[in-house]
């Protein structure tokens, strides 16, 4: 089983439009959305939910008002300013470290498991499995939820002998992206020809290198700026990143997204993306 991850660094470069299309082009795959705090892949794949599961990670402190003697030690020691002047816990600030519970002289503090969101398995096109999740707004632990989605997807691919996992990644280079990269065989960097697109691409590439994962590049909307597009191409060449292809700005893709449709359901887009998919698959056989 092999896993392909689509990431970009910068948000809004077209990861989900393209990932959904390649999922459509793949004969047999398990699909995954690792962008757990703004999950958009299901909007296009429209899966039927097979199962949904609560996800809790970490803890939140609770102070029992009856037993609290207002000594203030917990508020003084808390590094996250999560205990206010009235000695109440602010759940959005609490990291769940449990320091307060351990030092409270009257044992007035208890740590409770924290519900961080849920993850789900769904089915689309009657046969393909998709795994996705929703982190509750304001939660941390997105890395752990990504890991959960990944574990379940890989297990499913394993038991059903699905040869391929195609994953839509989160923006950025932080915990969720780091977690997305675990066990990945090939990363496809989806970029756009803008100064920020190129800058963000280089940072996510550095992260990829730290993790020792091979990659390739897609320049989306390349014709909006042929100069920067050429610069990105040269850079990719110098950094041993094969170009999977360049995609021109397309109103058909914009319209597909507006209607919440997978762009590759349109025959023109399907034809345009097919060679890119072949390049990706070919690269996957050599990594």
């Amino acid at each position, binding site marked *: 089983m092999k896993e392909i991850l689509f990431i970009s660094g*910068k948000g809004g470069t077209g990861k989900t439009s393209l990932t959904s299309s390649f999922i459509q082009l793949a004969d047999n795959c398990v699909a995954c959305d690792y962008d757990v705090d*703004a999950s*958009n892949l299901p909007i296009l794949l429209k899966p039927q939910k097979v199962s949904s599961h609560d996800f809790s990670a970490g803890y939140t402190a609770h102070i029992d008002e009856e037993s609290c003697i207002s000594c203030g030690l917990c508020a003084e020691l808390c590094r996250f300013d999560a205990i206010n002047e009235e000695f109440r816990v602010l759940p959005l600030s609490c990291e769940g470290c449990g320091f307060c519970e351990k030092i409270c002289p009257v044992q007035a503090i208890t740590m409770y498991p924290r519900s961080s969101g849920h993850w789900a398995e769904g089915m689309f096109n009657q046969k393909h499995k998709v795994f996705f999740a929703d*982190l509750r707004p*304001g939660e*941390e632990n997105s890395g752990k939820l990504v890991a959960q989605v990944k574990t379940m997807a890989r297990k499913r691919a394993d038991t059903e002998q699905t040869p391929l996992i195609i994953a839509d990644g989160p923006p950025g280079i932080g*915990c969720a992206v*780091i977690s997305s990269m675990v066990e990945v065989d090939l990363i496809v960097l989806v970029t756009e020809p803008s100064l920020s697109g190129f800058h963000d691409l280089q940072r*996510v590439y550095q992260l990829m290198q730290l993790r020792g994962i091979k990659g390739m590049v897609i320049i989306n909307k390349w014709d909006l700026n042929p100069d920067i597009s050429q610069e990105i191409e040269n850079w990719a060449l110098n950094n041993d990143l094969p170009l999977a292809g360049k995609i021109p700005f397309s109103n058909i893709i914009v319209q597909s997204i507006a209607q919440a449709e997978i762009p590759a359901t349109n025959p023109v887009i399907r034809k345009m993306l097919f060679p890119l998919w072949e390049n990706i698959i070919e690269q996957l056989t050599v990594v």
Partner: protein
Amino acid sequence: MQIAVASGKGGTGKTLVSTCLLRILGDKNSVLIDTDVEEPNAGLVLGQAVQKTTNVSRLVPEIAPRACNLCGECAEICSFNALVVLSDKVLVFDELCHSCGACTYLCPLRAIKEIEHPIGVIEEAQLPGYGTLLTGRLNVGEAQSPPLIKATKSQKATSALRIVDCPPGTTCAMIESIRDSDYCLLVTEPTPFGLHDLELSLEAIEMLNIPGGLVINRWQGEESELTALSDKTGVPILGRIPFSPELARAYMQGQDPLEAMPSLHGILTDIFNQIKGALS
């Protein structure tokens, strides 16, 4: 006044709005704070050289091997599995540590002290006539951005106008970025993705009890779903930036968006006046 510019979805135009707002409204005491520390872009748009760089670290434990008797208490205490006690030493995994300080405080033999683990930098750039740009830049490979966001926001805390260019998403990094703001401007786009992620951002600002308003970017006339969401939540639509290929092209090249779309000046001034009105 601190205005956070956030979005939920990435690539909707947060940095466009925040940099233009600063250029229109800022004076020499204003600050723009780029808290998208994973991928900071405001500096690229404003194109000013960084004059000062400050290192930011967080604290992680270091065990003094001679003082440690391998009792295992620290590993027991740590909620993040950042400490592992072996038969001859204690391993510390900096990347798992949340810098809570519990192990150091509670070690029975006082064998732990805290040392600095670098996580990134704060870059400061002076902008001609309209203030200062503070950019938080996370080291590549570092997983936790909130401590750096907090440190970046703690700079120049008394400025009369502070605009915060927030990271995408609605996790702890976004919360840390919008925290303590007087107002949160949510930049959205009229697509199913924009709408879905906006709903989550609205939940986040409601949790923090921050008043908010919407800006529809790449507006092309159709906005019924966004209007419905605005009506439902009571969060007003403050302005619309029309879709413009010229603006997109100019902005991608790092050219001045206010020149590429002259009407942007009026749109953003009007948005700011509405924010002032809402806060007074």
